[in-house]
């Protein structure tokens, strides 16, 4: 099945940047400035490991997902698969697959489950005869726990619940036997009581089939629970990475701290403190703030933060952040 060995670097992004430009000029033919959706992102996904990418809407996390899946090319930077640069080919699709947020939109409403799963099998040449197709479709449904398989095979998407649809989407991604799976908010459209099951399924697939899994989410608590590592993204840039426990128990970047303090926490008793009820919102990516993009909202911003872009600073073993607080030269100044 999958050719990777646990611990192998499967999918790597090197200094990837994506700017979106409006296709036509603005009013009176003026050129519009680009949207700087993703700026200098480097990351790597490892076989058998779950990496979570956390950030607010508009921070560029879905753009990174689409760049990794080569849905569109980066403005600059490289995507490497098993250390080799790749192009947008069918072979790449066979190795890197995506699961999208909305299972109501990602399945064709006119086709049955069998069709959705048979198509990738045939297109990528994994099954040739009808009998082979049927056998493999059944096996896929089995793997995502949609049983009895004979029943689910002949259902249309509208006959399935959100969780079941998402399982079909996962099965479809698995049909081509990928080495990397990118799941973009796979459970945020699902009801709370069925999220857990879908996340467990993804976890099990990553572990048992040695998939390199990127789990993109806005929910840092679920990232802590399911992922081995967490990447935090803000305004198009990666600002912190570390093991899940490190990042959530001992966050380095002030934005990560803000994100954690804002996450719903049933065990926290809300006090009537005078803490501000306005922490601002993420900046525009057309003209992002100078220096550190978080400095206008940062409670501990220093003068240097508005002028100099922070570089990657090591906080601990395998835990880094882009923040001047951890950059000794800036703190001394």
């Amino acid at each position, binding site marked *: 099945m999958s050719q990777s060995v646990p611990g192998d670097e499967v999918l790597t992004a090197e200094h990837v940047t994506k700017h979106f430009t409006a296709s036509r000029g603005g009013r009176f033919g003026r050129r519009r400035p680009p949207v700087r959706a993703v700026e200098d992102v480097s990351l790597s996904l490892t076989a058998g490991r779950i990496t979570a990418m956390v950030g*607010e*809407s508009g921070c560029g996390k879905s753009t990174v997902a689409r760049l990794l899946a080569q849905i569109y090319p980066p403005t600059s930077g490289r995507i490497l698969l098993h250390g080799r640069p790749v192009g947008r080919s069918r072979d790449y699709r066979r190795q890197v697959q995506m699961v999208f947020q909305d299972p109501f939109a990602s399945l064709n409403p006119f086709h049955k489950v069998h069709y959705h799963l048979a198509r990738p099998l045939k297109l990528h040449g994994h099954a040739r005869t009808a009998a082979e197709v049927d056998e493999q479709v059944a096996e896929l449904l089995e793997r995502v726990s949609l049983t009895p398989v004979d029943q689910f095979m002949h259902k249309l998407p509208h006959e399935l*619940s959100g*969780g*079941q649809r998402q399982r079909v989407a996962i099965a479809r991604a698995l049909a081509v036997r990928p080495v990397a799976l990118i799941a973009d908010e796979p459970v945020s459209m699902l*009801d*709370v*009581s*069925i*999220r*857990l*099951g879908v996340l*467990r399924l993804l976890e099990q697939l990553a572990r048992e089939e040695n998939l390199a899994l990127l789990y993109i989410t*806005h929910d*840092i*608590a*679920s990232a*802590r*629970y*399911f992922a081995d590592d967490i990447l935090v993204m803000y305004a198009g840039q990666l600002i912190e990475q570390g093991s899940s426990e490190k990042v*959530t*128990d001992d966050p380095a970047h002030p934005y990560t701290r*803000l*994100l*954690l*303090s*804002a*996450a*719903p*926490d*049933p*065990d*926290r*008793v*809300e006090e*009537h403190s005078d*803490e*501000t*009820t*306005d*922490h601002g*919102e*993420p900046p525009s990516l057309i003209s992002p703030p100078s220096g550190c993009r978080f400095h206008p909202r940062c409670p501990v911003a220093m003068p240097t933060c508005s002028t100099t872009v922070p570089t990657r600073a090591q906080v601990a073993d395998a835990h880094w952040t882009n923040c001047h607080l951890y950059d000794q030269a800036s703190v001394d100044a």
Partner: protein
Amino acid sequence: MTEPETGTTTGTSTVAAEPVLSMRGLSVDYLTDTSPVHAVDDVTLELHRGEILGLAGESGSGKSTLANAVARLLKPPALVTAGEVLYHPAGGGPVDVLRMSPKALRKFRWRELSVVFQSAMNSLNPVSTVGAQIDDTLRAHDTTLTAAQRRERAVELLRRVGISADRVRSYPHELSGGMRQRAAIAIALALNPEIIIMDEPTTALDVVVQRDILREISALRREYGFAVVFITHDLSLLLSMADRIAVMYAGQLVEVGAARDVHDVPSHPYTHGLLHSFPKLRGPREELLGIPGTPPDLRDLPPGCPFHPRCRFAVDACAELTPALLEVHSGQYAACLAHDPASYGAPVPTELSGEGSGR
């Protein structure tokens, strides 16, 4: 019973539990070509003056239908088939909202009860400025105000929800998602209502903005003393902000209680499952139980308790008897057979009784 503390309104509500709105035996059906769908089934629930009542449930549980029934916003094919909704004005006898004349309803809406919807982009008029929309609301419901007073009030309201005065002339598309939702809250506050229904007001927002708005709502509530019905699918959000929590499943009310009590000892298996479905931010990684299966189809509900096919504590009787809402702890009610030992045929499971948890 110890002497209640005074001067605080959070946690277990210590304010005298005086109702401002009571729903009694409320049922709402959606009429279809075949048989009607019972979207809300015999719900009895009270909203106390000045409290935040959290209404939690999954999609299709009937929480929004219930809120729309209370605000008289239901449209066909939805139909209230039974029950009453009593509004208790500050000084005066109760009035049945469901039997109000169109004229009385006009006076009731916005002066007594206002609504904040999930998507502020859809509830604000895109071609009218925020200030003009507050002005419209004031003019429609309070004819005594002069134009200058209305303008002053619009600025004041926006300031109260954290929007600067120069935004009065902004159109909704010029505001961020969080600011739009703040503007929608400002409009809801315009006539100082007794009750504000908030239907998933922060679901479309990011966590940081969400928490800011929740804190803003709490602060405004302390200042103005209105009661809030806060509808959400996210129980974890309610545990830290609501005074009391009501949980709905398949159109029925399955548990009601003080937020702390529900958090400490959920007495309905569904609530118990929900609380064990989302990972915690702190502490060791515990095994999450989750809830097996999927929510039922309202057109084809299982017999007996609608939750029994997914329930860890179900016994055979659960498929036959429909449990009634019973008081299981002071002020905490649950509709579960497990709290009725005679029908359950076994002692109450410790997970649901809080036995040994020190209460």
